[in-house]
């Protein structure tokens, strides 16, 4: 059942980035070309803020940005590696033939967003980066390597 997504995962990881919308892809590719890892870029995406600029929003930001990425990674693992709470969405996604990367990213974002109380549009590029960071490996092999991964007890929003 994981054959379809294995075709994508075993391909070049950077293809997850290349299929993002240009306004996201260009910034991410710039950071990658500067030598950042996929994980570094994901953290930069979450903590992005114009230097020396005080924001004039009328509300304070919520939660810990550091913990958020770990929470998101945990949810991606849970989705891909068979957590019961994602069974319906996972079965639906893996049952599709000819999966496209944009569809995979979107499906994961829509499924995971409610569990982290964030908008799916906010986490879609982060999910692409997490999928890219998996590297060229089959899903079952990757999941087997993640058995020691610990859940985040109290996920924080960025």
């Amino acid at each position, binding site marked *: 059942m994981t054959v379809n997504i294995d075709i994508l995962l075993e391909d070049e990881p950077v293809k997850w980035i290349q299929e993002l*919308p*240009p*306004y*996201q892809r260009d*910034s991410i590719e*710039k*950071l990658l070309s*500067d030598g950042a890892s996929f994980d570094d870029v994901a953290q*930069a*995406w*979450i*903590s*992005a*803020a*114009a*230097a*020396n*600029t*005080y*924001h*004039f*929003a*009328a*509300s304070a*930001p*919520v939660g810990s940005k550091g913990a958020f990425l770990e929470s998101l990674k945990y949810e991606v693992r849970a989705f891909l590696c068979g957590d019961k709470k994602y069974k319906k969405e996972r079965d639906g996604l893996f049952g599709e033939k000819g999966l496209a990367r944009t569809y995979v990213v979107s499906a994961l974002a829509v499924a995971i967003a409610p569990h982290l*109380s*964030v*908008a799916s*549009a*906010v986490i879609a590029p982060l999910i692409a980066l997490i999928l890219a960071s998996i590297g060229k490996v089959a899903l079952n092999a990757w999941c087997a390597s993640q058995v020691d991964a610990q859940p985040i007890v109290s996920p924080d*929003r*960025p």
Partner: protein
Amino acid sequence: MFDFSGISNLVFALGRSGPAGIQLVGTVFALNKPGLFATASHVAGTANQGLVVVFKKLSSINDYQDTSDTAVQSFPIQIVATDPFHDLCVLKADVGIASNIVIGGADQAPVGAGISSFGFPHADHGRMVLTQQDTEIGARVLIESGSIKAKHLVLNTQARPGQSGSPVFLRTDGLLVGVLVGSYAPGGGGGISLGGVDPHTLHQTTHAVSAEYLSRMY
């Protein structure tokens, strides 16, 4: 000079609805496609929950806005695209509102050019008064976010909480050249607060990100 009298039908407050009512979080404005709006990404935040466009009936920005009237109308809205490196966000609501704005950018706004911005200063105190600020471009600068450099305009005016997300137009032709995102503050400010005000922000060096980045997002 461009006629901005109808701007009250295009620029609104953004709020987050909760058990205690609606908390205003900044300014949002209608884009040139039905139901699409834009603001700064730090204003919209990361969650759709409770996000609403807030407005009072104003036929014109010249109407007297009753500051004692706390009754507002609202409709839900959701984040559809966010670019934290350029601090911009596009949102979608199930409404037919659209503007006829033309999106330009900092390249069309030379130093000294007259601009008008429209937003809701002091929204952090619950004040909801659509306010026009006229000033000039003081400088064009590149500001880094991570290692991503973005074009910004320095506006020679003071801004306050609630104005993030305000559209910045050229006064001559109404071209959208920027979106207000904050003011200069060493280290991003936040170190000192006197009565809720960071003294590092009490000056006339306001930052607006170039609107050109917005046109790629929808």
